[in-house]
């Protein structure tokens, strides 16, 4: 206790000693300012002065909804105008990718058409004849003929001979017209009455003795037209101009042709009555043509092998090894010939193996090597390169046989094959060895064709890609980046909105202002025009215009320009009506009468007094109208009447996925776009509402 007391005492003393008497009043060093500007409570200077526009701004910024709208709009503008500029990709940039897809690999079928394998000097056979060959063969098959002979218009003779079901021989007997020989001399005419009773011969002097010769007369009568030999002379009768003319064959005639040598002529003269002759080792055919009485001389080239027609193809043991036509024709020739043939210094022989397949073996070396197989089963790759191995072909053929036997239309088999890149080149690993890969082939029967598809690595347009780090909103049906197009599309939508509203407001204010200010008949006239414009149905007009723009193939940008003008022209009546109403009411206000009393000019009265007072309503109607115009533009683009592909607008982007399946599957394309449209329109409406409330002085906070 003592201690405590002591302590307390001490403490008290300490406290007391510590306490320094303090004057709480602040020490005044400076004198108070002598003149404090005194203001009364109601002095207007105490109140912060705000101009009407600042008051509006203040009220507007206090409106949370309007501010939200403003923020959305600013964000939208930044996204569309700055975003498109900063963005990595272009509006029309198409993206590609490598991907494994089931892709057509090739087709396989049992060959039924015969392909011609022409020997080297058979090129003289014209294409017309070549094309007919398959139909001739099918005709032969249906009639079960083994040979068929025919000639063409030039006198060439052809022979088709069946060697076996799959192999036909085609021979060609070529006859070429080389010259004509004309030796006839006119000696008279043979007049014949219509009755035919009193026929009459009129002959030149030396032959006049023949006129009365009845035997001659009868011969003439029998050979119209034609030729006959009478008393060692050859006579030729031609029927021209209804009156038969009588010629006598002269000793010397006129030879027209390539070879006009006397030797050839003599041979021709000597063989006029024969069918043919041989001159300098060449065979010729001579022929009298009764219709014009001259001799036709043709060269006979003889009967030669032209081609083999076959359904066989050669399956090379070494995949990709190419043989020429010479090899093929020689091989075909050897099948029913000697059995061996030579090609490029090597000897080959033809034989049938145990599976009854015709095999070509290389017997140049001691050990015969299988070189190629005959086959009627054709496998063709779509990329045109025949690099398929026999083992693949065998496997496929077995599969196809199974399918035909089982009546399947769809089947598949697995094959180990070398990997091929997108350009068709073989892929090798680092050690230079080919890379093998199991590949599943799907075989699908389409009539007689068997279509092969397998998984292939291809360079593809990246369509409808899911959102990723590269494409934030994926890609659309044309492989373009949706996010980029969203930004560019917004640009166009917003620009259209602003330009259209600007046009509307300009037109509306001018016409509405004139109507309201001048009144009377001017007002009546303009208001009737407004009524007419109100009656005009907007959508049908725009549809017609869209069709018109399509038909003249208008440029996308021009199209947008015209659309803006048309929308502006169709939209001004609303603004005009509003402005006119406002001005009508303002005109009767006392401050307008005061301006008249003050003698102000009309222009000043309109622009300084009327327009500023209409401005609030104008701003509100314009802001509200912006949303509407953007919506209209989107609608038009959605209907395909607005901006055209590849120009991006929001409506067009939704249009690109407008089919029901696309809408369900590619939501990541249209949902962001739809949201953008919604947000913009809502934001414009919020801002418009906010402005209207802010401009309304009666509105309380």
């Amino acid at each position, binding site marked *: 206790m003592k201690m405590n007391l002591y302590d307390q005492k001490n403490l008290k003393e300490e406290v007391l000693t510590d306490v320094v008497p303090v004057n709480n009043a602040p020490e005044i060093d400076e004198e108070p300012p002598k003149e404090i500007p005194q203001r009364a409570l109601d002095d*207007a*200077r105490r*109140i912060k*002065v705000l*101009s*009407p526009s600042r008051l509006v701004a203040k009220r507007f910024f206090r409106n949370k909804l309007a501010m939200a709208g403003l923020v959305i709009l600013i964000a939208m503008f930044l996204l569309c105008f700055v975003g498109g500029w900063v963005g990595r990709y272009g509006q029309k940039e198409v993206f590609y990718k490598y991907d494994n897809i089931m892709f057509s690999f090739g087709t396989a079928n049992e060959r039924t058409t015969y392909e011609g394998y022409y020997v080297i000097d058979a090129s003289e056979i014209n294409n017309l004849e070549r094309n007919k060959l398959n139909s001739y063969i099918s005709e032969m098959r249906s009639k079960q003929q083994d040979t068929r002979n025919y000639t063409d218009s030039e006198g060439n003779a052809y022979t088709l001979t069946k060697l076996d079901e799959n192999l036909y021989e085609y021979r060609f007997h070529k006859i070429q017209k080389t010259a004509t020989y004309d030796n006839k001399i006119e000696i008279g005419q043979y007049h014949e009455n219509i009755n035919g009773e009193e026929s009459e011969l009129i002959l030149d002097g030396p032959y006049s003795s023949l006129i009365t010769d009845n035997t001659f007369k009868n011969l003439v009568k029998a050979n119209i037209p034609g030729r006959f030999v009478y008393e060692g002379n050859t006579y030729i009768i031609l029927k021209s101009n209804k009156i038969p003319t009588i010629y006598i064959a002269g000793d010397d005639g006129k030879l027209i042709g390539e070879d006009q040598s006397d030797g050839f002529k003599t041979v021709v003269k000597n063989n006029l009555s024969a069918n043919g002759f041989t001159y300098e080792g060449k065979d010729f055919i001579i022929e009298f043509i009764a219709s014009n009485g001259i001799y036709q001389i043709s060269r006979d080239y003889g009967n030669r092998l032209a081609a083999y027609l076959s359904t066989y193809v050669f399956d090379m043991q070494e995949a990709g090894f190419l043989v020429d036509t010479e090899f093929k024709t020689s091989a075909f020739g050897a099948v029913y010939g000697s059995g061996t043939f030579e090609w490029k210094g090597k000897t080959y022989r033809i034989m049938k193996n145990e599976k009854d397949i015709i095999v070509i073996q290389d017997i140049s070396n001691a050990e015969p090597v299988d070189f190629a197989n005959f086959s009627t089963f054709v496998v063709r790759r779509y990329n045109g390169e025949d690099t398929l191995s026999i083992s693949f072909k065998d496997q496929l053929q077995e599969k196809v046989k199974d399918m035909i036997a089982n009546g399947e239309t769809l089947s598949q088999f697995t094959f180990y094959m070398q990997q091929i890149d997108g350009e068709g080149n073989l892929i090798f690993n680092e050690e230079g060895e080919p890379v093998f890969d199991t590949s599943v082939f799907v075989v699908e029967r389409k009539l007689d064709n068997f279509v092969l598809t397998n998984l292939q690595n291809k360079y593809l347009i990246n369509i409808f890609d899911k959102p990723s780090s590269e494409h934030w909103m994926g890609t659309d049906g044309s492989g373009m980046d949706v996010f980029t197009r969203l930004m560019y599309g917004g640009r166009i939508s917003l620009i259209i909105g602003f330009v259209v509203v600007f046009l509307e407001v300009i037109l509306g204010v001018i016409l509405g202002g004139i109507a309201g200010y001048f009144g009377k008949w001017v007002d009546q006239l303009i208001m009737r025009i407004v009524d007419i414009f109100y009656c005009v149905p907007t959508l049908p007009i725009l549809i017609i215009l869209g069709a018109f723009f399509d038909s003249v193939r208008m440029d996308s940008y021009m199209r947008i320009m015209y659309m803006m003008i048309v929308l502006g022209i169709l939209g001004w009546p609303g603004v005009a009506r509003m402005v006119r109403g406002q001005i009508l009411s303002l005109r009767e*206000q*006392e*401050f307008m*009468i*005061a*301006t*008249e*009393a*003050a*003698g*102000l*000019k009309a222009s*000043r009265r309109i622009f*300084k*007094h009327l327009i*500023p*007072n209409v*401005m609030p309503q104008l701003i509100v109607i314009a802001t509200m109208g912006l949303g509407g115009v953007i919506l209209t533009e989107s609608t038009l683009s959605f209907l395909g009447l607005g901006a055209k592909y590849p120009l991006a607008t929001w409506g067009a982007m939704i249009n690109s996925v407008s089919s029901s399946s696309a809408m369900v599957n590619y939501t990541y394309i249209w949902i962001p776009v739809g949201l953008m449209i919604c947000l913009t329109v809502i934001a414009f409406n919020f801002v418009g509402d906010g402005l209207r409330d802010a401009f309304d*002085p009666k509105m309380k906070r």
Partner: protein
Amino acid sequence: MDKRAMHGIIISVQKKVCDVRKKIRKFASGTGKFFKNPKKYISDYKAAKKAIISDVYTPLVHNPENLLEVNNLKMYFPIKAGLLKRTVGYVRAVDGISFNIKKGTTMGLVGESGCGKTTVGRTILRLYKRTGGQVLFEGRDINKLNKKQLRLIRPKIQIVFQDPYSSLSPRMPVGEIIGEAVREHKIVPKAKFNDYITKIMNDCGLQDYHKDRYPHEFSGGQRQRICIARALALNPKFIVCDEPVSALDVSIQAQIINLLKDLQREYGLTYLFISHDLSVVEHISDTVGVMYLGDLVEYASTEMIFHNYKHPYTEALLSAIPMPDPTYKMNRIILEGSIPSPANPPSGCKFHTRCRYCMDICSKQKPKVIEVEPGHQVVCHLYDKEQLNSLGIDPEEIVKHEK
């Protein structure tokens, strides 16, 4: 059905048919007339219109003492009806009134609401196109000026409106409202413009810093000051004060009235003071005109009007002035009925329907303007002694009898 009832119905139907027939005939005859002779029809129509608006007056000879002379001024507003907006009648807002205002004086114009006081003020300013009569301002007929001349004369005649709230453009700062027309008419050189506006504002009791403010920041009294400043800034000679204080409370009224008086002294202004507040008019005016239904019924100096009134309407009007003395027994004359329509005014003396001294002649003949004393004009049959004598009526008796 009863035969009688049947008969009645038939008769009523017949009557209706007759009515319709008459209407059709009337219409047909009208159109027939038009198609028979369109020129005559139109000239007839114009003549009929002229007969309604008889613009007949003896032209005034300008007296240099007078700043404003009004002679037989008429302002009829057409009543339009029907699909083609044809004029079917006229509202005779001002029906031929004449008065003069001397330089530097104030004329008060009193009357009931709707008697045409404001129309007179505005017609003088040519804010309405007058129907008939003359308005001479400094000897020039205002209605005969062309647009350019009118624009030049505008600053000299100004107007202060009744409602200070609607007479100022809400989107303009006060300095601009006052100075706009000054700049337009180049009343002062550009260098002196600011000082001039400041001076005018100070004269009207406004401060320099009010220039940048907008009308909505001011009270009614201040606004009326702005209106006065706007009128005054154009350096006018004549101001029409169209009920400038009726929208204000009494203390402000006094301020404004005194301001007007001060300005009149300072600038030598002439006022036409339109009001229905008689005490204010008494305070400010030198002469007073009393209007009833578009007519000026009595016109005299203030003293004569308030202490030696003649017209029964003036009597009734003045009896309604409240007295600030509770012991005073008010002898109010209450007028019967309401004011007749100016579109269809009563025949003869327009006041006869409500006049307590009404005689037979009042409803039949229009009274003449009678100068009972020098400078005291009355329009009433009671003071037309010649006519009353000829009719054998003693006006004193009638007045006494009524009292």
